[in-house]
């Protein structure tokens, strides 16, 4: 069993961090193979950024597959760029706050979450990625939510002030993801 995930958005939306949290949690808590592969241009902010996470019971060949089982899209350009890579029957997780385009596919499952708006409501636009991670984990159950949370907590150990907000963001995401199953 192998799961290929692509997370794509603008630089600054935390797409790398989202992928890394998920992959790191998998490494820490399971004996599965896992890879995280980032892909970005020379830009730091505002350009496109995407990463690939592969989780597998077998040895992993390519750290970026040709066909994605799951796709997380945080902005419009990423939808256009990656929708063609999603397998038939795959799941598209979409930031419905800023992607309103027709996805142009009827053969995939669609999970919507207005993560930009929700993050702003929580008072910090930066947590949109943690909300989306919650949505993904809540919907797919690819890994236990508490294990993902432990990883986030560990990574934010030096910034304890941010923990309550991230906890709120992650739990909101879980709730949204579970509700759309």
């Amino acid at each position, binding site marked *: 069993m192998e799961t290929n995930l692509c997370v794509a958005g603008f630089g600054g939306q935390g797409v790398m961090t989202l992928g890394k949290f998920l992959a*790191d949690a998998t490494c820490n808590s399971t004996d599965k193979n896992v890879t995280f592969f980032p892909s970005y241009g*020379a830009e730091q902010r505002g350009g496109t950024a995407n990463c690939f996470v592969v989780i597998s019971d077998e040895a992993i060949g390519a750290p970026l597959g040709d066909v994605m089982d799951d796709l997380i899209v945080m902005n419009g350009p990423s939808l256009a760029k990656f929708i063609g890579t999603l397998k038939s029957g795959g799941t598209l997780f979409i930031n419905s706050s800023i992607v309103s385009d027709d996805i142009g596919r009827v053969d995939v499952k669609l999970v919507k979450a207005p993560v930009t708006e929700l993050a702003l409501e929580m008072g910090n636009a930066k947590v949109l990625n943690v909300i989306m991670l919650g949505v993904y984990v809540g919907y797919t159950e690819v890994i236990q939510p508490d294990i993902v949370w432990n990883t986030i907590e560990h990574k934010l150990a030096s910034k304890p002030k941010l923990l309550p907000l991230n906890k709120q963001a992650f739990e909101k995401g879980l709730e949204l993801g579970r509700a759309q199953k």
Partner: protein
Amino acid sequence: MARVFMKGCEAIAEAAVRAGCRFFAGYPITPQNEIPEYFSRRLPEVGGVFVQGESEVASVNMVYGAASAGTRSMTSSSSPGIALKSEGISYCAAARIPMVYANISRGGPGVGSIQPAQMDYFQATKASGNGGFQMLVFAPSTVQEAVDMTYKAFDYADRDRNPVLILADGVIGTMMEPVVLPEMKSDEEVAAIKASKQGWACVGHQLDYANRSWIQPGQWSTLKMQEANEDAAALYESWKKDVQVEEYQVADAEIVLTAYGISARICKSAVDLLRAQGIKAGLIRPITVHPFPYESYDHIDYNKCKAVLDVEMSIPAQFVTDVAVGVKDRCPIETCLCSGGNIMSRDKVIAAAKKIMEGK
């Protein structure tokens, strides 16, 4: 041992520190910046020294100096930066100085592209600088292998008093994977390694002209220069025992894929998928690309094998020239290539293999 989730570049740097590397000098270039960044933070913690040089040339010569003083030393760069370091590497090889360096290679030639590629094969294996010197060159295909090879590279370098190259690529350097890190050498062990170099290194000697250490990347006497070349040639000849290779499902294979580094792991998963579809595929993966495991290609059953498929992220193909020496015209060699920073696709490898098997 618990596994940790690490980026290839950072894992290489940590493995070096654990092997006793206490000096690193380098100069920034994508996609290997996490190596110097990691060393800059880590080396001061263990009493080592990190220097960001003013250039690649300066950095490699600092490593030449530090290694001449008996300290396990390393540098790293990516393709065009490695080209700039070739002068210093050649000097280290001439002076028989042990050092380790990593090439996290990217597209080329010239400044090329910042994305991953395997376009430095000839440079790495045939001519990493002037003068015909040779090195052990290891090509990791996982982050774990990059760690294990880097750790061991310092032992090889010291054993041979010669540079050792870790030839990785931008995927191995920037991807993250679980790794089990090797044991940290104690301060005593690191000191003992340095002390063991008393015989040749500039580690502090009596005022004894006859026995003082003398590090020189050449000879004024033609006779002495030839002797040095002969010594080096004997060393290179001794490396047959150091050849490392992975042969996977080769014995009954009707098509044998061959690749190194990142392309090889993609091929290995392609072999499994091809077998699941009834196509008897195999893989030969050189782990050392120098010395090259030519003899592995004798293990192919050429009565069954329709073709060898060379897979590499280089256009034109380079690795294929060594493959051809191994295959010796016993079957056709086809290629499946990409370059410019595009990463090899498993589907593309499978399609290339099927096309050969279907005779299209």
